[in-house]
């Protein structure tokens, strides 16, 4: 009966109630969406950053280099000479250096030329099929396989550049040899192939023969002598004009990060960017925007709290006699106050629930529309910050209902009945 009275009373003035709920829902929706996106972006960026101490690439914006080489969300800064870069990577400070070469895509998914170390780095295994061994063989990230429907045994033509509709490389076809296990990292959204494939794709027709031969050679190395991956490429890279896009470097000790970047940036035509630093800079910039949005959302929440207050307070005037009637029928003061407080709380719960639904819908929209651009899929899990948000919203509801509840508590019954 108690809840029935609360519920009926709320919907007795449907416009007031709807306004309050909608305002609450929008503010919680926006805040929860911001929380979800920010938190997930940060963890996503951190897991993708795994073991990458330094990115070496062509000169340009260091942030662009990091975004393009680590997260694959930006165009590369340019190419670097493989031979020159390899010399640097031989130093004792470098534990592992993974070469990357890219520029082509398939249906918007980047085709990344690298070696198998890149795949091992993200702890991925060939879930279906096997890893690539020869030029023009590719393995697909878990998402790519799912979205494009490609499977081992199928072939496809790459597109030059990043756009889904671009000039295709008609002369060569990639062959899918495996699908990688899902890693929840950037790898899920990549198509991975040996470095040689990329070279072969972009060679001039007259060099074609040579490229193919060398690619086979590469495959042979891989299968045959079981060389350490890190040494594999230095042997094959005889051609001094060979280029790659970037190197992902892991140091043996923190000493590396002290000396190598400076050496590269001042002594070579390449640049070295520290991803952790660049990402911190990015988050700092993003943080300003997010803070502004959050402030905005909280002010909407304040307004909605005020709207709940006004709705309840105005109703209180109209309902003065009704409340007096309940008292005269034997209801205690406590029950009247509880009735009004519950109205505020129910409004808050409605707003909160709708807001969380809204933010989930927002996540769904982002995933649908921008998932492949951002190369990440956001999840819908309730995060701990949202519990705090829920508590805040409930607090707003209680606070807005508090004054009307106190007024009901202190109502002079005789006066109210006589008026």
């Amino acid at each position: 009966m108690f809840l029935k009275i609360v519920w009926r009373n709320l919907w007795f003035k449907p416009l007031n109630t709807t306004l309050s709920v909608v305002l609450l829902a929008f503010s919680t929706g926006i805040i929860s969406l911001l929380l979800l996106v920010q938190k997930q972006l940060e963890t996503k960026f951190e897991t993708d950053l795994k073991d990458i101490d330094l990115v070496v690439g062509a000169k340009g914006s260091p942030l662009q280099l990091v975004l393009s080489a680590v997260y694959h969300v930006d165009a590369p800064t340019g190419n670097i000479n493989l031979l020159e870069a390899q010399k640097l990577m031989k130093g004792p400070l470098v534990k592992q250096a993974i070469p990357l070469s890219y520029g082509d895509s398939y249906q918007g998914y980047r085709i990344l030329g690298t070696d198998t170390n890149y795949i091992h780095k993200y702890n991925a295994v060939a879930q279906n099929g096997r890893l690539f061994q020869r030029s023009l063989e590719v393995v697909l990230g878990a998402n790519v396989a799912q979205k494009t429907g490609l499977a081992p045994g199928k072939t496809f033509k790459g597109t030059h550049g990043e756009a889904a509709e671009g000039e295709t490389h008609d002369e060569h076809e990639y062959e899918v040899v495996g699908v990688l296990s899902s890693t929840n990292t950037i790898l899920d959204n990549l198509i991975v192939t040996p470095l040689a494939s990329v070279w072969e794709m972009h060679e001039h027709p007259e060099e074609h023969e040579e490229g193919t031969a060398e690619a086979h050679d590469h495959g042979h190395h891989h299968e045959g002598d079981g060389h350490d991956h890190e040494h594999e490429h230095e042997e094959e890279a005889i051609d001094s004009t060979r280029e790659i896009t970037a190197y992902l470097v892991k140091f043996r000790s923190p000493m590396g990060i002290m000396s190598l970047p400076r050496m590269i940036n001042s002594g070579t035509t390449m640049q070295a960017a520290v991803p952790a630093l660049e990402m911190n800079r990015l988050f700092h910039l993003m943080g300003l925007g997010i803070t502004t949005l959050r402030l905005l959302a909280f002010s909407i929440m304040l307004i909605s709290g005020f709207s709940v207050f006004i709705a309840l307070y105005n109703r209180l005037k109209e309902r003065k006699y009704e409340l007096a009637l309940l008292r005269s029928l034997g209801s205690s003061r406590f029950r009247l106050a509880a009735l009004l407080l519950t109205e505020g709380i129910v409004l808050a719960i409605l707003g909160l629930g709708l807001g969380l639904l809204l933010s989930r819908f927002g996540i769904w929209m982002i995933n649908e529309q921008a998932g492949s651009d951002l190369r990440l899929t956001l999840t819908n899990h309730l995060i701990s910050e949202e519990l705090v948000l829920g508590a805040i919203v409930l607090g707003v509801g209680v606070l807005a209902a508090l004054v009307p509840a106190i007024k009901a508590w202190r109502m002079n019954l005789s006066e109210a009945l006589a008026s």
Partner: protein
Amino acid sequence: MLTTENVQFHYKGAKGFQFPDLHCAAGEILLVTGQSGCGKTTLLHLLAGILTADKGAIRIHDTDITGLSSAEKDQFRAKNIGLVYQKAHFLAALSVMDNLKLPGWLGHHSYPAKTITDLSDRLGVAHTLKKYPAQLSIGEQQRISIVRAVINQPGLLLADEPTSALDDQNCFEVYQLLREMAAQQGAALVIVTHDGRLKDKIENRVHLS
């Protein structure tokens, strides 16, 4: 059923009231008359435990309600007193039926829905149960408020100007219904009014001046 002794009351900063002693046995009707401002409603609120007397005793059954706390008075009222006002008020958001369930809910006294329909039927308003209070005529509203007042079978029925807002026809009918209900349930009925139409119908009268 109801006896009062030497009841005095004053509002803050106003002159005090000294009320004559009242007596109303179960099944009896007491009419309290007087001009506006002579304390009729004040007396009724004292009897209902809505106001607390400065002095004196108000006994209902064997309980002196002047000694009860505010919360105890609320509960006592829920169980033992039925109130009818000049203008019937309801929870506008609830149906008439739900409004009639309120006394049971608040008085922790459950009665089957049949009791409500039977009573409403007897008062000729059974057809209004599914409507909302605002859809009822004033006469219907007053009848429903009588159903609400008697549904808990209180020992004391207090009516504050129950007929003043009604035309002659309805005035007479509402009075008849109140009387019948009180008689049937063996309740004491106290009517406070300035409505002259009721004067010659009730012998047991007290005039406030």
